[in-house]
């Protein structure tokens, strides 16, 4: 018993190292026994995962083609929900807001994080302490810090503006339908910069120092080094950060709840918020159609992400 398993492990190992196994061995592979413990290790996770993730996803997609209100009987209604979703101004507004907000935030976050990464990898004092501070926002609960910021936006910022005589900000920007989204960008960026920054630091550190030394010898300015060395050599990291960030911001929920709760009016209602309203509104199937559309968008982004990651591996 012990010897057979040892043998199988060795063969498995050899195959892993050797890459593609020869055809002849492929036949014997299926007959080789798997240690049952490996199945004990794998199967419960697969079952739980299927119940907790795959089943709800499938359920949601199927129910999006019905008139279900979340419980009781339902019948299939074809694409009715989808047609309704596409002609619902509230949902279109939510998509418009979510995509617009995500685009602005992803640019703000990446610009700041990239510059911070360069600064934090240069010859500065207290490098480790500074990094520690800049990463800190990552570990703070979104809803809690949103409440803290909502106090600052509603009380401190107007107080400052009044003292300085700056009229546009004398009212809380959270109560202004045209400006409230800016507050959401600020807090989302505050929390999202750390992880983006860490990935950029890894990117900047992956560039060999000799490249900069050579460039410095050739008399390249700091700006020139940034544009001609750092940016192109971290292109893969930039792409990854843009895609991951955009994907995360599309899901924005708790920071918006903490700051504006979708208001004033519905001006800052994100897609996630509109979907969650399916709980109370009784339009369960309708919001599942909304969620399915959202899912398709996520898949498209996932494909882009996979492409991006592959491009990175080739770097």
């Amino acid at each position, binding site marked *: 018993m012990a010897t057979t398993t040892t043998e199988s*492990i060795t063969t498995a190992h050899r195959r892993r190292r050797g890459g593609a196994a020869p055809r002849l061995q492929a036949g014997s592979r299926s007959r080789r026994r798997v240690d049952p413990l490996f199945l004990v290790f794998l199967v419960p*996770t697969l079952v739980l995962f299927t119940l907790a993730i795959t089943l709800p996803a499938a359920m949601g997609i199927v129910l999006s083609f019905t008139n279900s209100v979340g419980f009781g009987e339902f019948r299939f209604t074809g694409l009715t929900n989808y047609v309704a979703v596409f002609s619902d101004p509230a949902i279109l507004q939510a998509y418009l807001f979510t995509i617009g907000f995500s685009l602005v935030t992803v640019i703000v976050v990446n610009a700041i994080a990239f510059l911070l990464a360069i600064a934090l990898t240069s010859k500065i004092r207290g490098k480790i302490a500074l990094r520690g501070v800049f990463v800190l926002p990552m570990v703070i609960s979104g809803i809690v810090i949103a409440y803290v910021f909502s106090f600052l936006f509603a009380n401190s910022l107007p107080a400052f503006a009044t003292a300085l005589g700056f009229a546009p900000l004398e009212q809380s920007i959270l109560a202004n339908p045209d400006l409230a989204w800016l507050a959401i960008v600020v807090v989302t960026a505050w929390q999202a910069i750390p992880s983006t920054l860490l990935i950029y630091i890894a990117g900047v550190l992956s560039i060999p120092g000799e490249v900069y030394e050579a460039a410095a010898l050739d008399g390249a300015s700091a700006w020139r080094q940034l544009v001609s060395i750092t940016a192109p050599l971290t292109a893969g990291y930039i792409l990854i950060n843009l895609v991951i960030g955009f994907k995360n911001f599309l899901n924005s929920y708790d920071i918006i709840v903490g700051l504006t709760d979708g208001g004033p009016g519905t001006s800052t209602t994100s897609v996630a918020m509109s979907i969650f309203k399916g709980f109370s509104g009784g339009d369960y199937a309708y919001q599942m159609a909304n969620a399915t559309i959202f899912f398709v968008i996520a898949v498209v982004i996932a494909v882009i992400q996979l492409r991006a990651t592959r491009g990175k591996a080739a770097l």
Partner: protein
Amino acid sequence: MSLQAPLRPGTTATGSVRSVDADRTAGRRGERSNWPVTILLVLCTLSVLVPLYVTVTMAFKTTSQAVDGNAFSLPAPFSVDGFVQAWQLTDFPRAFGVSVLVAAITVVGTILLASFTAYAIARNWDRRLFRWSFFYLLAAMFLPFPVLALSQVKLTGLAGLDNPFGVAILHVMFQLSFSVLLFTAFLRSIPAELEESARIDGASTGQVFWRLVFPLLAPMSATVGIFAFLASWNDFVMPSLITSDPALQTLPVLQQMFQTQFSNNYNVSFASYLMAMAPAIIVYLVTQRWVMAGVTQGAIK
């Protein structure tokens, strides 16, 4: 940091990786410190520190000082009334207990399930079942939570899991993709000879895993565990949707009460916010290294 090498094959191939640790020493022996950049960065830290400073000072003010509109003044007089009231309003010991329970189940569950699964997958990569399982689990990384939420709420309700246990199970499931990915990559970098020699000595697969592989995974388990803790402790959406009994809510969800009922007792609400965020900050201060390494490894993979 030594973990990063096997995880970044693309960069190690060029033989020119400067690890973060190497970078640390490079800064010291470097010719001259760049003071303007240092000073600029110190000023930038204000954007991180000011909101936290306001949270702490507000928490120690009296209610009358807290409503005076100046968020940046120091507490005068220094008062812990906010904490006393917040403690009672949120029933802090119970809420803290629920949060700790959810986070503990999430951390232990994620480390065990993900390491079991990753070990099975990494050592049977030549088998379709295991290889496809890997991609199946990974696919969840691309699934946005709002898509699942409504159905998950219904299903957890039907299963009698509309409580902190249901929340913890879902937290584990959402951590799986990232964690299995990290563990699998790490397991592939462990030379098979180690396990083979243990097997020649007569150890079973289970013994090899518990005595040899699991201890070797310790640094990775730390990263996985810290991220599971942070995700679980700070989560708002899932407990707020899944847990039906308000008495069993986690700390972040309970902070909602200060938006409506007690909206003018800023010292109380900020004391409560501080108590909700402090555990995560303390964990971060102790485990910075792993947190920073984990983000990089997760993204580069």
